[in-house]
Each structure stands twice: as structure tokens, then as C-alpha cells.
């Protein structure tokens, strides 16, 4: 019966118990929710970094000047720019370069899948080291001419057809989510993308009208050999190739990393403030509760409860409150954060990728444990206080 007493005490005062559970839920919400948002942003950034794959990207001067490169590669804005294919061979001759691969960008006018233009990114399967490792997680076979791979946010499934510039392309597979704007693009090998560029030329698309698509590339992705300084190699390219700008990918990501660091800092401060506030409120609430119930505890002393036993009752109540609050907080965070991850990504404009199930579960368990520990921690002072109270004085005062 004594073991059930803490439960009965909580059930007996539903409003008081609910208030304590809600405060405890705030704590676990901040622990779990904060950790989820921050790690989603970290994973998103990591995913973007590994997706870019290259140390340097060489693009036409004009694209670099107008920030088109960053907009297309990182923000996923549909667009295109081209330079002479000869640049690929010239770059590969520069000392310190381990690998080069050309990419082709084409923005569709409209496609069957989407109400907005879609970015088509073409890669050379023979030399690519950036797109293929990621694609191979979803699609291991060779792409045929006319096949495309759809980013995770493209509204088309494997086997369906998409139409670009009047050409029909078959969706060979849908790619894994990266949490970046690259999920909004369609990927094709160089043969397919050149076919599409030719179709675009027929439709009179800008620069393609005057040039042969076979002689054009959009960018060159460059991997630098170990032991070589990326900045020096980049400078070499900029010095030796006219009309071409080499951009270090680290610089492209550093802006995002900076924003992420700022957001992390603000989120951390906010979350710690919520945690501290929740702990203080819980401690005050427990202290008030003990004060309100001191006659009840005095009666327990009258019938033979030791000080330790009284403290045990208070601490058990606080563990139950912590456990229930912890679960409520985690549940609330799941309901609020996971369904609105996409919206959050849009609002903060940073890559956002939800962690795997194992990480989510571990974080959830940690958040519930934190709330369960916070309960007894905040109630400890009150538990000591009842241990010290003078039963006779309390009984006499009524």
C-alpha cells in the first residue's frame, strides 16, 4: 500500500500533478527538440558537404560573379551557364589535380512533375566522383540514354515519365533525401543531358541557340591531390585560364556553416534558458507542494514513517512526474518538429536532414532520462526539508 501512495497522491491532485508534468515536459521538449533541430542542421550540412564532393569548382567568370553557382548548387535555384569544353582538358593539366569531372546544368521550362521549373544536373559517369557515390545508394545500374534520377522532393516515382523541352525521360530511380535543395533537382548522365540541351536549343533557349551543346560544359568539379594546397591550385586555375573562375567549395559552404553556427548558438541559449527556467519552476513547485502537504507528512510521521521514508515518497512522486513529463515532452516535440521539418528548412534556408531512427530513439531516451533525473534533483531540497520538519510543531499549529 505504501508503494502505491505516491501514485495515489498524484492521482488525488490531478491539477497539481498535471502542472508539474507540463513543466517537466517543457524540459524534455527542450532537450529532445533542441537536439533534433541542431543535429538535423548538422547532418544537413554534412550531407551538402559530401554531396559537393569536390575541393574546387571551376565555372565561367560570369556565373561566379553573379553568384549563380551558389544559387544553383546550394540553394537549388534552377539556372544554367556554360563554358567551352576545352577548359576541362586545360584544368586537368594543372599540377596538383587528382581528378576532374564536368557537369552540365539545365533548367527546365516546365515538367510533368512540377509546377515550377526543375534543375537538371548532368554528370559524366566515366569521371564523376561527386554525384555517383550518392546515386549508387539508390541506383546501382548504368543509366541508359533518356533515363533520369529524380531528387527526393521531385513528384515522380521510378518507372514514371518526365517531359523536358518536349523530350520524354524515364525516371530510373528516386534518390535518397539529402536535406538540401539538391533534392529538388533531376540528375542525368552526360548523354541524356546533351540530348536535352539539344532539345532546348531547338526551343531557342538563350546561349544554347548559338552554340553546339556537344562543345559545352557548365562546370568542372576538381579534386586536389593529397599534399597540395587547395588555395594554391585554385589560384593556378584562375591565373592560367581566361574566362574561368575557380571557387573553393569550402568557401561556398562556410556561409552556411556560419549561419548554422549562429542558429546553433541562439537555439542553445534558448534551450538552456528553458531548461533552467523549468528546473527553477519545478523546484519552487515541489517546495510549495511540500509546504501545502506538511500536515499530511506530519501524519505519516505520527503513524511511524521515518524521515527517509518521507523523502522516498516525495522523490518517488518526482520520478513519476519526471517520467510522465519526459514522455509527454518527447511526444510533443515529435509531433511539432518532424512533420514541419520541411517548413523549418524553408524558413531558415539551411540544409536540414532528420537523423536516423537509432539516433532519434537514443536522444528520446536521453531526454526522458534527463526529465526523470531533474524531478528528484529539484525535489531533493523539499525532501530534505520535510525530513527536518518538526512534526510536533506542525501538529500543534493546526
Amino acid at each position, binding site marked *: *500500500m505504501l508503494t502505491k501512495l505516491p501514485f*495515489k497522491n498524484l492521482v488525488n491532485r490531478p491539477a497539481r500533478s498535471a502542472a508539474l508534468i507540463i513543466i517537466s515536459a517543457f524540459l524534455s521538449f527542450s532537450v529532445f527538440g533542441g537536439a533534433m533541430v541542431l543535429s538535423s542542421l548538422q547532418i544537413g550540412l554534412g550531407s551538402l558537404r559530401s554531396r559537393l564532393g569536390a575541393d574546387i569548382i571551376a565555372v565561367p567568370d560570369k556565373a561566379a560573379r553573379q553568384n549563380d553557382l551558389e544559387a544553383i548548387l546550394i540553394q537549388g535555384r534552377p539556372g544554367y551557364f556554360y563554358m567551352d569544353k576545352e577548359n576541362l582538358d586545360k584544368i586537368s593539366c594543372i599540377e596538383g589535380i587528382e581528378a576532374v569531372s564536368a557537369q552540365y546544368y539545365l533548367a527546365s521550362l516546365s515538367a510533368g512533375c512540377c509546377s515550377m521549373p526543375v534543375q537538371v544536373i548532368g554528370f559524366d559517369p566515366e569521371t564523376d566522383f561527386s554525384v555517383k557515390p550518392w546515386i549508387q545508394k539508390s541506383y546501382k545500374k548504368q543509366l541508359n540514354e533518356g533515363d533520369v534520377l529524380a531528387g527526393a522532393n521531385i513528384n515522380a516515382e521510378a518507372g514514371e515519365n518526365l517531359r523536358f523541352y518536349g523530350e520524354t525521360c524515364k525516371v530510373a530511380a528516386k534518390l535518397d533525401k539529402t536535406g538540401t535543395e539538391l533534392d529538388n533537382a533531376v540528375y542525368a548522365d552526360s548523354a541524356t543531358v546533351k540530348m536535352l540541351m539539344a532539345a532546348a536549343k531547338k526551343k531557342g533557349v538563350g546561349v544554347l541557340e548559338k552554340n553546339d551543346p556537344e562543345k559545352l560544359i557548365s562546370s568542372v568539379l576538381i579534386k586536389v591531390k593529397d599534399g597540395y594546397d587547395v588555395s594554391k591550385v585554385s589560384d593556378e586555375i584562375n591565373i592560367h585560364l581566361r574566362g574561368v573562375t575557380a571557387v573553393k567549395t569550402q568557401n561556398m559552404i562556410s556561409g552556411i556553416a556560419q549561419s548554422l553556427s549562429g542558429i546553433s548558438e541562439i537555439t542553445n541559449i534558448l534551450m538552456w534558458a528553458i531548461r533552467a527556467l523549468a528546473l527553477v519552476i519545478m523546484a519552487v513547485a515541489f517546495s510549495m507542494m511540500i509546504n501545502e502537504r506538511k500536515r*499530511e507528512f506530519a501524519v505519516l510521521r*505520527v503513524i511511524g514513517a*521515518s524521515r527517509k521514508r518521507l523523502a522516498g515518497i516525495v522523490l518517488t512522486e518526482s520520478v513519476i512526474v519526471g517520467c510522465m513529463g519526459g514522455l509527454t515532452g518527447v511526444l510533443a516535440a515529435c509531433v511539432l518538429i518532424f512533420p514541419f521539418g520541411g517548413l523549418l528548412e524553408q524558413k531558415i534556408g539551411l540544409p536540414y536532414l532528420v537523423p536516423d531512427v537509432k539516433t532519434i530513439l537514443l536522444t528520446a531516451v536521453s531526454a526522458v532520462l534527463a526529465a526523470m533525473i531533474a524531478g528528484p534533483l529539484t525535489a531533493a531540497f523539499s525532501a530534505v526539508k520535510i525530513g527536518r520538519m518538526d512534526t510536533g510543531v506542525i501538529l*500543534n499549529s493546526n
Partner: protein
Amino acid sequence: MILKAEGISKRYFRNTNTANYFYAVKKTDLPLFRGELTAITGRSGSGKSTLLNMLGGLLSPTEGRVLYDGRDIYALPDKELSKLRNAFVGIVPQGQSALSALTVLENVMLPYYMYKKDGDIKDRAGELLERVGILSLANAYPNELSGGENRRLAIARALIHDPDIILADEPTGDLDDENTKTVLELLRAAADDKKAVLLVTHENDALSYADRVYRMNGGELTECEG
């Protein structure tokens, strides 16, 4: 003799000024004997309840000793003193003293389960509730009871362990004449059953049930003759 107060007193400070204090109970000796009902009468605030709480191991005396079967109870560690109070002392505190989360029956049975996990005390609890006239309320909660019914619950709870000593602080407060008589007869019966019973009251009618009567006045205890 089963319980003996030896020169106990209780002093309280009015504020942090150490010179400003008063005695709630002045230096007092009080023996409680098996088979006797001892009554202490006096006005409110005279120190009766303070003395009872010191005898029950609930309030440390400023000086002196309380001996149970020759052992100084305030020399015992808290756990042992609590166990002793649970097993051998039945206390009826002043005012409402039931736990609001438990039913009447659970309140009465709680002292038994304080240090025991097995055994069934339901029949004895039912029997005691019947003796104090609230068996029909066994499944009710304390907030559904009248003041008098709450007092009777406290008496049944104090008797659940068949204790050696019963300390009752104004047990007939809030009770009508019939219930007052029932409770006093119950305490008298306990004394006749070789228990040491201490009754703190300011009702003169209750004194006729006592073997010894003391008067408390301004913290000073004096035995009344005859």
C-alpha cells in the same frame, strides 16, 4: 510503568534574540502505567499537546528524557524511533489527520503496512471501524467525512497495531455526546486491556473515565487529587 517522562521541558525562542524565549512545557515528570488511563486537562495553549508530542517521540524535549521500557527514545536513531512509534504507540493527533489520497479503510490499515509487505489486516480494520461506528464509510475518502467521523477514523488507525501506549490529543473534539461516549469507552477499554492510555482533553466529562488526572497550566503540570 511503561512510558516515563523524566524532567522534560520544551523551550521556544520567540526570535533570533537568544534571551527572548518561553517554556511551552516546564520541567515535568510524568509516568504512564499499563492498565491506566491518564488524563491531562487544561486550557488551550497550556502545553498539553506539546507534552503529548514529546511523549510520542514527535518533538524532541529541550531537556530531560522520555523512557519507553527503560530506553531513552530520543537517543534512538530516527529509523528505530519511527519503528518503535509505529509498533508500540498509537497516536490520535489533534484535528483532521487522514491522508486525503486514501480511503477510510486504507487510512486505517496504513500503519500496519508501513514496515510490512505481507499479511492481511482488513478484518481487524473492519472490526475497528465498526467499533467506532464508521464501517459503512470504509470506502469513502476523508473529504467526504464530517469532522467527527474523521476523529473516529484517527482513533481506529491508532488502535490498528494493538499498541502498548495510546496517546490521544482531544479525541472527542467535534463529536456529539453519543460518539464522545463511544470514544471514551473505547479508550477506557484499551486501558482495561493493559494499555497505557494518555488522554489530553479540556472536557471535564472525560475526566470521569480516567484513573489519574493532571492539570496543565502555563506549561506546568500538577496532579489533581481524588
